[in-house]
């Protein structure tokens, strides 16, 4: 630390810090526009000019490094004069349309003009008019005349989102921000552009003209989508969430949000929202009062369990449910005597159940990712599955960390990878093993004999990429192997887990699961795990009674066709959900409208084991109710003990009691209550992976991703997100050679058959895929009739 003086006040500063950062650390804000702590220094707005003793000219605080004994003046006549002048320059071409500007009330230019600007305009010249641009359905670039050329958006795209999609074209006063050839910004992080823009040039399309900043009440919350648990603030007007913005948390989302986190709120206000309970009367679902619905459900469950035995009941929850909901569901199911409960609908291989040493998790704190020298991601559609995790890896790679990927398609992650490899789903374990063996050979170790190794399918050749990945772990001080959602959903999940575990042990790397949902860790903490049938088996061996919570099996299950078939042919399906899904009338007998996360209190445990509790931001819509209350009511009606909770917090405390919590104080946001214990990715000695299945020669393997904006019930109802490129209808994508072998050309319509159903899709050439694979997205109505996410399938011309 060194000592500097700001306006006569002694301030300690980190060596090498810029003046603006040093001042901020000391609680002093220096006016600025182009400076952003997460972006490179541009020093182009010149708003942060300050006076430094012995320097002949004013210097930009954002680009000037502190030096010991430096004397800085922020309020000298020179500085105040410069600030006034710069504001005048910025305003001569800035339209004074604040009354109709979305940014009004939270505009940096407005604020600083009030704080440091002059009071009247001297300019008599016409203002610049900049033509509107269209960069997509999320971010508006209509009012580009408001742009002050700070280039934050340009730098954001290049440096954070990983691809230059915006630029400042032209020169001098004619410069303007634009995309290439009228193209949009196709980034899953694009919404952050709205936040980085200091004026009202880039605004939120879904939010435009919906409210003035001062009409909103801001409620802290946690994003309910991916496994990070991004900290968000819900802006509420008239009991509706009308906007979501990030709450800064350096350890999780920093100051960023994915578009899914930011724009999914539209789903909360979707016309699909249920306002009243429904029960099937004379073959159709009809609205009824709560007491009728609950009575009906409880009575029906009770009598069917009595008739067919408790094993006839199965319960399935979405992994995006709250900790409390997952706990109450499993408690209810177990109390009724059934062990058929799960929260992992997309999983196929459950062989590690009963062999885990603890709760699977990231293997480290999220922030530790920044410290890695080497990282390998296995089985992940990285950028779309985990936008914020990809962001950290992108930065890691930029700073020299060796980041590699072994996945099922060579998607452009916009990461400067050390090495990348795409393998067929059935070959993924063998490819990982090849990396492990290459590493062992390089460091002169013999791979331990485990059942996961050696008896695998045909060995994978040691390609350059395999060797490069192995080499990246040699000599790494801190390294990690991360298993993504596709690895967890794989029919070889157990084997991949075991090989990765062995590799991690030998190389000293950490093993981590990135996680596939907001409460992927929380479900384990809540014990929402089968002692009977798991999420796949409960449909493969149909039950008489299903209790579904927050899950839409036709889109969320590993084999949606199988799930829907079971649901259609059973006695009773009770669905607890905020939404009237299209498929619900096909199978539901009782539908209980539940409040989504924004209207209830609860907790999520993110992938690093951090418990984040939140309160409801608005009242439940119509007569919908928080799900924890619904479970309590059902429990009581079923005559089960232990369902008299006063609040969700008492539920949470009961759950977390066995998990000694470290650092109870204030970790992780509002009411954040610390970290869960018992996190451990190791498998026991007795673990035996499922027998490896090699598809028949010439068979086509399905590669499925869960498209980012279809991943859960809320996001798939968000209207603006459905307009994005990421929401394009699924296609049957194939390697050029595979297409050629099938004698199908790009753009042709094809029929994809996968027992028990089929789908008609457009064939698309895609060189990022391994040969003999067909990429067909899951979680989409167009492909809901198909079977396993990673099974084999047939393709023929339609």
């Amino acid at each position: 630390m060194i000592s500097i003086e700001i306006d006569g006040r002694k301030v300690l500063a980190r060596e090498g810090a810029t003046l603006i950062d040093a001042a901020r650390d000391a609680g002093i804000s220096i006016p600025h526009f182009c400076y952003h702590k997460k972006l490179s220094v541009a020093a182009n707005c010149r708003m942060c000019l300050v006076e430094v003793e012995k320097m002949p000219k004013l210097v930009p605080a954002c680009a000037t490094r502190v030096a010991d004994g430096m004397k800085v003046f922020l309020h000298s006549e020179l500085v105040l004069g410069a600030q006034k002048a710069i504001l005048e320059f910025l305003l001569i071409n800035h339209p004074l349309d604040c009354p109709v500007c979305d940014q009004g009330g939270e505009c940096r230019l407005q604020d600083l003009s009030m704080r440091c600007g002059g009071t009247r305009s001297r300019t008599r010249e016409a203002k610049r008019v900049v033509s509107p641009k269209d960069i997509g359905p999320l971010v508006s670039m209509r009012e580009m005349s408001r742009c002050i050329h700070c280039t934050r958006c340009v730098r954001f795209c290049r440096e954070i989102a990983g691809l230059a999609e915006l630029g400042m074209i032209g020169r001098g006063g004619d410069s303007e921000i634009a995309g290439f050839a009228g193209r949009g910004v196709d980034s899953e992080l694009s919404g952050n552009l709205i936040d980085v823009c200091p004026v009202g040039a880039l605004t939120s399309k879904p939010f435009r003209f919906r409210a003035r900043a001062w009409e909103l009440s801001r409620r802290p919350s946690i994003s309910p989508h991916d496994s990070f648990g991004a900290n968000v603030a819900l802006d509420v007007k008239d009991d509706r969430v009308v906007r979501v913005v990030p709450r800064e948390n350096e350890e999780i989302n920093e100051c960023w949000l994915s578009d899914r986190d930011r724009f999914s709120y539209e789903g909360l206000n979707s016309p699909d929202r249920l306002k009243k309970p429904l029960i099937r009367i004379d073959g159709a679902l009809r609205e009824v009062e709560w007491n009728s619905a609950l009575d009906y459900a409880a009575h029906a469950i009770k009598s069917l369990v009595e008739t067919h035995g408790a094993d006839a009941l199965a319960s399935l929850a979405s992994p995006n449910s709250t900790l409390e909901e997952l706990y109450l569901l499993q408690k209810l199911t177990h109390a009724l005597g059934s062990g058929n409960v799960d929260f992992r609908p997309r999983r196929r291989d459950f062989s590690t159940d009963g062999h885990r040493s603890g709760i699977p998790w990231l293997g480290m704190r999220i922030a530790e990712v920044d410290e890695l020298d080497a990282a390998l991601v296995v089985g992940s559609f990285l950028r779309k599955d985990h936008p914020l995790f990809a962001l950290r890896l992108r930065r890691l790679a930029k700073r020299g960390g060796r980041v590699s990927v072994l996945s099922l398609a060579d998607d452009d992650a916009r990461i400067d990878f050390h090495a990348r490899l795409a393998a067929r789903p059935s070959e993924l374990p063998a490819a990982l093993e090849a990396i492990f063996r290459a590493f062992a050979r390089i460091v002169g170790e013999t791979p331990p004999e485990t059942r996961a190794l050696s008896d695998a399918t045909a060995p994978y050749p040691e390609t350059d990429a395999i060797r490069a990945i192995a080499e990246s772990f040699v000599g790494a001080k801190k390294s990690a192997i991360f298993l993504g959602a596709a690895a967890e959903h794989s029919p070889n999940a157990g084997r991949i887990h075991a090989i990765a575990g062995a590799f991690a042990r030998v190389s000293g790397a950490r093993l981590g699961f990135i996680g596939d949902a907001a409460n992927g860790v929380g479900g384990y903490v809540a014990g929402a795990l089968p002692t009977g049938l798991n999420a796949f088996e409960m449909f493969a061996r149909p039950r008489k009674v299903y209790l579904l919570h927050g899950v839409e099996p036709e889109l969320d299950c590993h084999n949606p066709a199988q799930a829907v078939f079971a649901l259609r042919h059973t006695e009773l399906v009770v669905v607890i959900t905020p939404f009237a899904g299209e498929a619900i009338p096909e199978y539901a007998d009782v539908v209980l409208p539940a409040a989504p996360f924004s209207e209830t209190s609860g907790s999520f445990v993110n992938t690093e084991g951090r418990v984040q509790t939140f309160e409801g931001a608005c009242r439940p819509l119509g007569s919908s109710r928080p799900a924890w209350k619904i479970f309590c009511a059902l429990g009581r009606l079923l005559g089960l003990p232990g369902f008299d909770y006063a609040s969700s917090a008492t539920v949470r405390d009961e759950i977390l009691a066995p998990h000694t919590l470290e650092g109870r104080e204030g970790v992780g946001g509002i009411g954040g209550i610390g970290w869960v214990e018992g996190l451990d990715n190791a498998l026991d000695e007795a673990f035996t992976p499922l027998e490896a299945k090699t598809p028949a020669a010439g068979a086509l393997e399905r590669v499925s991703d869960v498209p980012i904006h279809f991943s859960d019930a809320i996001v798939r109802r968000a209207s603006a997100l459905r307009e994005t490129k990421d929401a394009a209808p699924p296609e049957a994508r194939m390697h050029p050679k595979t297409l050629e072998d099938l004698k199908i050309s790009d753009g042709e319509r094809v029929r994809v058959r996968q027992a028990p159903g089929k789908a008609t899709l457009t064939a698309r050439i895609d060189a990022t895929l391994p040969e003999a694979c067909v990429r067909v997205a899951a979680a989409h109505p167009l492909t809901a009739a198909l079977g396993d996410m990673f099974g084999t399938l047939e393709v023929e011309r339609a």
Partner: protein
Amino acid sequence: MAILGAIDPILTKDLDAGTSDVSDAWRCRAYVERGGYSALKKIISEKIPPARVIDELKKSALRGRGGAGFPTGLKWSFMPSDYDGDKYLICNSDEGEPGSFKDRDLLLLNPHAVIEGMVIGAYAMGVKRAYNYIHGEIPEACARFLEALDEARAAGFVGNDILGSGFCVEIFAHRGRGAYVCGEETAMLESLEGKKGQPRNKPPFPAASGLYGAPTTINNTETFAAVPFVVSMGADAYLAAGTPGNGGTKLFSVSGHVERPGNYEVPLGTPFGALLELAGGVRASRALKACIPGGTSAAVLPAEVMMNLTMDYDSISRAGSMLGSGAVIVLDETTCMVGALEAITYFYQRESCGQCSPCREGTRWMHRIVRRIENGEGRSGDLETLEDVARNISGRSICALGDAASAAVQGFLKHFRGEFAHHIERGQCLVPREVQREGCRLRERSSKATS
């Protein structure tokens, strides 16, 4: 290119010495015949260590000829000698400041002097790769430089194992494509890296982090052309060619209302009147009204001030302007000063890169005000605003372009405010349009100054 008879020219030695073969004077053979490449040969044969070359340059008091006048030897000494990796040397031939045109003549008429200077510089600073960034608008000069480069390579002065010494330097040309701001050295680096030519914030300076982030030195074309003389004849001889405190000769580019516009090599310290005389005096023997002594970035000075000045860094600076790159624009009595400033402010607002707010917004604002005044739409208060805007840009932009535009405006208002006021009050110029037009017409030229 004209040469003042009173001194021994350095940069233009023997170029138009009346030999039969003037058109080939640029060629390698002709250059060698008049003593060219002897400095390089001397360094190689006498194994003069790089540090001594730099010392000699320091002693010569050679100052950068691009405009800023920074001591060249000192600049070279900033290059880290123990740097582990590539370092770069760049010749700045991106001359585009109105009034300045010496680089074009040097590249056309004496390109080997520039090349020899670059090779010596590369030797002194341990550079293996050098670029000459050439103004896009002088294609013939660029072609000439490339041809000269081929000659030099064939003769073993450039490339691998130069003169059998084991020392290597490769030189390349990089042609600009129409952006004045790339003459600013950090904008030039950005441009060389394949980006828009937007100046960087300084520090870091190029010697610490230049091209591709590596140590880099950038010198003006004329500076490089002077280097061989300093090395072969010694610093003392170079110093002796100038006046005390202002070492060496300097090319002055005289343009505007003169009979024989062109480049004139004279010792620093030559009286302005003598330089004007060399250029054939004011066009059609009209009266001198004013002069911009160092390119449009320099403040304009009225005739009576100018006629009492000598052409050196200190004298001009004392008069409130600057010598800059030695671009002397002569304005005679037919000049409308508002119109002249309109041309200048138009230039700066077009050439502003658009990066920083004071320059992007300020240069355009200034031009709009001046244009209004010129068009007879001036209003009271305009001059105060104009002056204030100029002051508000000054010292606050990323590079010197904003300062230059500001200095130009301030200079015109300081010395010719009355003329501006007249325009505003009367809505028209003191000098009738037809007189202005007549003043701008070229007359049959008595002798052609350039090729």
